């Protein structure tokens, strides 16, 4: 992690970060990443044990999808809730939310 990466990440995450903040984030995020590097130890442990990558992949996909998901049911959104939702927008007109232009 360095200051350029922090700037790039902030841009991707749609966050405006001041120069004074970048130094703090650099320090804090680097400390967190340093700890997360410990995961390599877990991967070493897994590689040395009998667990195979194929087993891992199977649990990650098929089992999760089969076990956890019910079918979606699509319903119309109640008019009252639509009206309440529109109130939250800064500007709206005849059921549409008005947003700033892409370019000024």
């Amino acid at each position, binding site marked *: 992690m360095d200051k350029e990466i922090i700037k790039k990440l902030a841009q991707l*995450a749609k966050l405006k970060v001041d120069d004074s903040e970048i130094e703090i984030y650099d320090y804090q995020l680097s400390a967190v990443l340093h700890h997360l590097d410990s995961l390599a130890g*877990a991967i070493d*442990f*897994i590689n040395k044990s009998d667990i195979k990558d194929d087993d891992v992949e199977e649990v990650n996909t098929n089992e999760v999808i089969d076990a956890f998901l*019910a079918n979606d049911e699509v319903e119309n959104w109640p008019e009252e809730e639509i009206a309440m*939702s529109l109130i939250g927008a800064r500007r709206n007109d005849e059921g549409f*939310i008005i947003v*700033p232009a892409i370019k000024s």
Partner: protein
Amino acid sequence: MNLQSLTLAQARDLLDNRRLTSRQLTDYYLQRLEKYDSYVRSSLLIDYDGAYQAADLADQRLANGEGGGVLGIPYIVKDNILTKGLKTTAGSKMLENYIAPYDATVISRLKQAGAVLLAKANLDEFALGSSTENSAFGPTHNPYNLSMVPGGSSGGSAAALAADFCIFALGSDTGGSVRHPASLCGVVGHRPSYGAISRHGLVAMSSSLDAIGVLARSAVDVTTIMEVIAGPDKYDATASLVLEAPARVNQMINWSQIKIGWPVEYFSSGLDSEIADNLTNIKNLLLDKGATVIPVNLPLTPYGVAAYAIINMAEVSSNLARFDGLRYGHWAGGSNLLETYLNNRKDGFGAEVKRRLMLGTYFLSAGEGESYYKQAQTVKTIISQEFKEVFTQVDYLLTPATPTAAFPLGAKVNNPLSLYLEDSLLTPASLAHLPAVAIPIGWTLAGLPIGSQLIGKRGDDYNMLRVVQAIEDIINIPSQLLPWE
């Protein structure tokens, strides 16, 4: 009549036998909130009118011969759960004035069952934290020592219950956010099996791990509330798990048939000695009762918090992308669309949210960052496999809930890593989608609560809660006075 620290079961008895009305009960808690919440700061909004209306409706139903369940029972809900017509802030300036257009499924089920919503509880912003200090509206204080944190992120819910502001509370638990504050505030906190309770109407944070959980004064109370709120929901495709019917509350536990695992990795050198001693005492009590307690191994436990952090941050960066201030939320504005996004999100989000958004974006980026995510998913899967293997040997796992008791406000606020490590004993069960309960087991010499954790098999929530109640009955810990009362 002394209403102090009523359990739901005790309140139920008083209401059903017409010795108390729901309005009187509601009035008792609203008065306490009014008088004392300036010390604890558990709640962001108190709904006086709504609470009295709900209480009067409950009293009509009670007068018509209805009873049982949560009818007429006052509760508080974490402010990341939508309540129609009331503000739901998620502890964030981004949603400071957001009024929910619909009720979360858990709220509509409680409403239908006649429960009385009193207030919306404080939390770490978007449930990101372990101390409730990350709230945009100021920290909540631990009721047993106001200079200490209540834990988090459901700190407002746990503190409100411990401060006797309600009979039960709802929170949300992604990596421990119900169990952590329950442990630090001395109440029971249940993270259900993933998929047992609908998340429809819960402000999404980390969708592969988020769960709504119950905080109460006993496991019997948790069971009563679970019977109302658990079950499939057409609005949440992941809420497809049907729990086995609850066993009768008064059914005796045959301890000789219970095998409890004692995972050695949870008792590492970082564990506070007072907590370790209390856990050992519980183990000895269970052995005296005839239970089998055997050491087991879960070797990847020390890596749980790292795997959790990566998955959590990646999902946070996706889920929180929706908060741009256009359809709802904080508005700072700008000369064009991009500048508007940037200004709205800069003003609307706090420091911890920004940290996780940036790291999450990193983990989801091609290159070096993505390797962290792949490693984390692998470790998550193997941790689940380790639990499956251990549960072929034992029925439950008994562990500490937190490495230490409550710590001082401000002590860790500028050190995000130390706060992530607060959940180190709680994240493994979350990653494996298992039910787990924080159980109060004693007090430190300084008068702070000590909690333990019981982890069960996926879908076995009700049997686990029965065992938790039996453990509570054995321990029977004394209550402590609240210093500000």
